[in-house]
């Protein structure tokens, strides 16, 4: 029976059907399935498939948004059923496009996938100053600061964040992740960022890896 529910959950996410996703979540909880297992065995395989299909051009942005919304609604139901102190948040992730850069689409997709995978996300939007990243990360008590840059001319904002975090003695407190079309692993290493993500799926994987206990 559990397998049927897991399959329904994954299928609902793949089809972007919020109603069916919520129904599968409620049914699974009603049958006593552990909420964590329900997420991990049912919903996450679904959203991972969505990510893979999107990355290979077989599923498109509107469907991705619907799937992400369905995932969000289902995880809301499941998280509400988890006793306090055992919430399913994988971590707190603050994200934005760096100062001078107004590109938004890629970063927004990252936000959707992070949320769908159980991260608490604060999206600062675009054209975000270094000071604001640090200030908001402090208030949000973020685990990870993610910065996106789509232009070679604005990538410098990612380096600035690393410099300012070090100056303020906060480098050890926040993990940093960089992404965006011209951004590379080499750039991440050069500026001292903790991780580089080439796409939204990779951002989720890297965020999980960053927060794994050493």
């Amino acid at each position, binding site marked *: 029976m559990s397998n049927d529910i897991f399959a329904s959950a994954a299928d609902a996410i793949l089809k972007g059907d919020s109603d069916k996703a919520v129904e599968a979540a409620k049914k699974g909880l009603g049958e006593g399935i552990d909420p964590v297992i329900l997420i991990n065995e049912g919903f996450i395989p679904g959203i991972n498939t969505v990510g893979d299909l999107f990355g290979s051009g077989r599923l498109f942005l509107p469907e991705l948004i619907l799937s992400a919304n369905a995932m969000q609604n289902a995880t809301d139901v499941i998280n509400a059923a988890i006793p306090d102190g055992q919430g399913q948040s994988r971590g707190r992730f603050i994200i934005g496009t760096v100062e001078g850069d107004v590109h938004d689409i890629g970063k927004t997709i990252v936000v959707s996938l992070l949320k769908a995978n159980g991260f608490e996300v604060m999206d600062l939007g675009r054209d975000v100053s270094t000071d604001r990243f640090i200030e908001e990360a402090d208030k949000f008590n973020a685990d990870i600061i993610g910065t996106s840059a789509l232009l070679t001319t604005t990538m410098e904002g990612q380096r600035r964040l690393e410099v300012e975090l070090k100056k303020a003695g906060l480098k050890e407190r926040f993990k940093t992740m960089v992404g965006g079309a011209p951004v*590379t692993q080499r750039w991440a290493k050069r500026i001292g960022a903790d991780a*580089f993500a080439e796409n939204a799926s990779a951002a989720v994987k890297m965020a999980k890896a960053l927060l794994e206990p050493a």
Partner: protein
Amino acid sequence: MSNDIVTRMGDGERVSLSAEEIREDIQAGTADAAQRGGIPELTAQEQEQLFDIIADPSRIVSVKPGEEVIVTDDGCTMSFYSGQDGGGVGAPLSRMQAVLTYERACGADTTSLGHSDYSYKPVKPIINFEANDYYNTSMMTTAPFFYGAQPNLGLYFQPDGPCPNAAELMPMGKIDEARRAQEEAAGHLTKDLVFVGSRLADVGLEGLNFDTSGSAGDADFMAALQAVAELKRRVPDLPILMGASGEFILGMHGEVEYAGTRLAGLYPQDQVRIIETAGADIAGVAINTATTESLPYNLARAVTFVKAASEASNIPVHANVGMGVCGIPMMEQPPIDSVTRVSKALVQLGKADGL
């Protein structure tokens, strides 16, 4: 095992790999392209030929005499006068001087003119000046002289344009509204492409380049296809090059069609067919370079895709060998060792008709 073949990663970093590692990356790259595109992998013989090209100890390689192809210019002249942050060398040349230098000093096969914004929309209000510049320069060039820019649908969304911003509507779940906004924007874009192309044709335009079509998604690509068809109806003899922006058409809308074909998700072998259907004379293909993979991996992918596109097309296929595409590393100044290896492989193994 020795690591003695110097190559690069997709972000340009120099690495030394063993022959076995390079062969493994070639196999993985062609397998990935075949799986994604539903096309054949490179044969064992082709993979070995690709290995020989990559492993050649010379810094620069080239095709054999008699196998040379045409290089179509998409904004190369801008590299003379734009600054380093724009990928140029900042030489103090006017546009005309840059075109003539490129043709006469560099021996270019074709040359081109473009607005510094490199989008069609900003050209509309200054079309008289642009047509005048094109005409004056064309009186001094000998090689085919294109006018080129990107369709760039993004400029038609608020706050830069008249249509509601699809990138804001979509994350809010307003999918129907986002799709309508893209369709409306595509209508404006097609009109502008046809307007600029027609006005330049009036002064003797020798070729028009819709460069990086589809960069804002499938509606962007559709608008360019519609413009190609309309321009061919109005000016049948105007040569048009339509180049894609990635290895598959991004489905930002997801449902737009051209000639009964859904555009989202089309891979190069289908992109070139639809470009041909619209009436273009040359199809450009662009295969994504993965910055975290090696040049052997990226080039094997690119050759696999380009070969399939060349076989599918009845019009010439020109592979984009600019920064971050078709195996070229993602570097502002692409390294010559990579550029020449990519060029040779795409022509000899990918059967590209031009670059």
